[in-house]
């Protein structure tokens, strides 16, 4: 039996308000998820819903004042119990992150080839600087850039090219799990399509597992087998991605999926759909279901009952009292 690449069990992450005695604000509130070897999960939600906190928690990249409970198992080992040396060896080789702002994630005064080679030399996955250099060229070509771009500085590359450099860097040590945090949000549609196709190819060729984070449901549906929707630090719906997108069960997922119209669909022509209000403040969460103040179909019970995920069959779950269990 093969164990999942990633197994997150009842994870909570809280940030402390100013000072060591400040109260704790929950950013992630009891999230459980798993990604099987070669599987891909898309995580969707608005800014402030906790999706980046969750991504960073997986490789223990959180600020030191963050308080976590629960477990994150990467290839079966609890990340929170790793010693510093072990943690360092796991980063890049077992789990790697592609961050959103490619310009800020790269060192402006170092050639991109040097930056891609750095994790390989640190982790000694390549025996010599010469081998690392060959591998850099190979990686760059894999992500669709000519090998000689290794000598370029970040400012000499376009946004799409820099994003590819970050992907090449994340792949440098052949990780089992790739975490992509809004990897295409800043890119043009055509470049986005190039990057998404690249990720799909890498998954197919190397059996890479992926956690893909974005607020754009349509992108996730394109790339991921499964989809989880995060609201106020909790998963409110999950299931196979096309089903979640085309037939959402939770009213929040409905609002999110309607925000991106399908071109040619007469019902969205000249009628943009949105969702009023703001995501709740983690310091002041609503009672009951945290979505009820913005929910179009909320009932009186919603303000008192905080519902957990309900299994509705066909691998689908939703946290809403209007959902019928299977």
């Amino acid at each position, binding site marked *: 039996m093969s164990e999942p690449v990633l197994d997150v069990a009842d994870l909570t992450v809280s940030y402390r308000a100013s000072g060591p005695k400040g109260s704790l604000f929950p950013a992630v509130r009891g999230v459980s998820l798993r990604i099987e070897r070669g599987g891909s999960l898309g995580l969707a939600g608005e800014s402030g819903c906790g999706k980046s906190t969750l991504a960073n928690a997986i490789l223990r990249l959180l600020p030191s004042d963050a308080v976590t409970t629960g477990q994150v198992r990467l290839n079966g080992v609890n990340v929170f119990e790793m010693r510093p040396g072990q943690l360092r060896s796991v980063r890049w080789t077992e789990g790697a992150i592609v961050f959103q702002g490619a310009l800020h994630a790269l060192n402006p005064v170092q050639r991109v080839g040097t930056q891609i080679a750095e994790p390989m030399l640190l982790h000694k996955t390549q025996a010599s600087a010469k081998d690392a250099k060959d591998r850099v060229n190979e990686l760059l070509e894999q992500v669709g850039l000519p090998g000689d771009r290794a000598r370029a500085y970040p400012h000499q590359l376009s946004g799409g090219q820099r994003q590819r450099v970050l992907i090449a860097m994340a792949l440098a040590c052949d990780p089992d799990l790739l975490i992509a945090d809004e990897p295409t949000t800043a890119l043009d549609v055509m470049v986005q*399509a190039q990057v998404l196709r690249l990720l799909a190819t890498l998954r197919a060729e190397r059996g890479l597992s992926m956690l893909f984070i974005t607020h754009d449901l349509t992108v996730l549906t394109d790339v991921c087998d499964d989809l989880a929707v995060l609201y106020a630090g909790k998963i409110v719906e999950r299931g196979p991605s096309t089903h979640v997108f085309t037939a959402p069960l939770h009213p929040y997922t409905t609002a999110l999926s309607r925000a991106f*119209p399908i071109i040619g669909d007469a019902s969205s022509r000249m009628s943009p759909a949105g969702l009023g209000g703001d995501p709740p403040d983690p310091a002041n969460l609503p009672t009951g279901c945290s979505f009820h103040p913005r929910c179009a179909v909320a009932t009186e019970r919603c303000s008192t009952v905080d519902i957990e995920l309900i299994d509705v069959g066909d691998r689908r779950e939703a946290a809403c009292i209007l959902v019928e269990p299977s």
Partner: protein
Amino acid sequence: MSEIVRVRDAHVHFGEARAVDGVSLDVHPAEVLALVGESGSGKTTLIRAIQGLQPLTSGAIEDQGETKIGGRRRRRVPHDIQMVFQDPTGALNPRHTIYDIVAEGLRIRGDRRDEADRVGEALSRAGLRPPERFTGRYPHEISGGQRQRVVIAGAMVMSPRLLLADEPVASLDASIRGEVLGLMRSLVDDTGLSIVAVTHDLGLAWNIADRIAVMYLGRVVEIGTTEDVLEHPTHPYTRALLSVVPEMGRMEQQILVGETPDPLHIPWDAASPRCPLLASGEAERLGVAEACVRDDPALAGDGHQAACHAVPVQLSAKP
């Protein structure tokens, strides 16, 4: 029908680079026109030229009697053309109250008559009701969607005939997006305003635009009603753009290789064609491949126009 703006063969060149390279289009009264294309296609330069912030190298832009020609930079930006930028948080002064932000345009114009009433009216028109609830607050005290509404109110207080919106929802969350787009559409329907929206988001165009102009390398390559352009695209570039919109599963994806060419080094050679028709040999089969490499196609067609040698051949081949 009097056009709001007429752009005639407009060119904006930065040295050798042709950011806008011969664009002609009209903006009709009470319409939303979406200018779509990748980064570097010249769409932002074009609306800056319409606003009067960017002098033309040649050509003309007429807005109701006034003509902007040649290299002259306009000192006075006309207040009946207003701009809405991408990021509302960056566009609002964090130390000013909502009232001061909305009133600023009027004050700069030296027009303080009935200021409070007009600010209140602009706020309610932008959906911030009742206005008294907002006037005394600061940008950080309101939500992202409300901030973009304040930016729009600041433009509306000047009673513009034309709003130029540069990626108005690109930096907003999915949930707020629809709210702001709905407001833009209702302003056009209720007040007769026209909007030119620059975007790379075809969903935005489908949501609110009457017409679409697709730009590539400083030119309009296809223009027509939203339904024509998005449901029956004829130019290969428009088709490629549409095919990569996620969830357009019914189309075969045509991912163009590389990025938009550098306007300084436009590859007009057949050896490295970005055009899928040329690359696949389809242009050769239609007998236009030679023309594709030799001649620059002009916009052709009636109403729904495309600048492509293959389109007339393809259309005449259809029964």
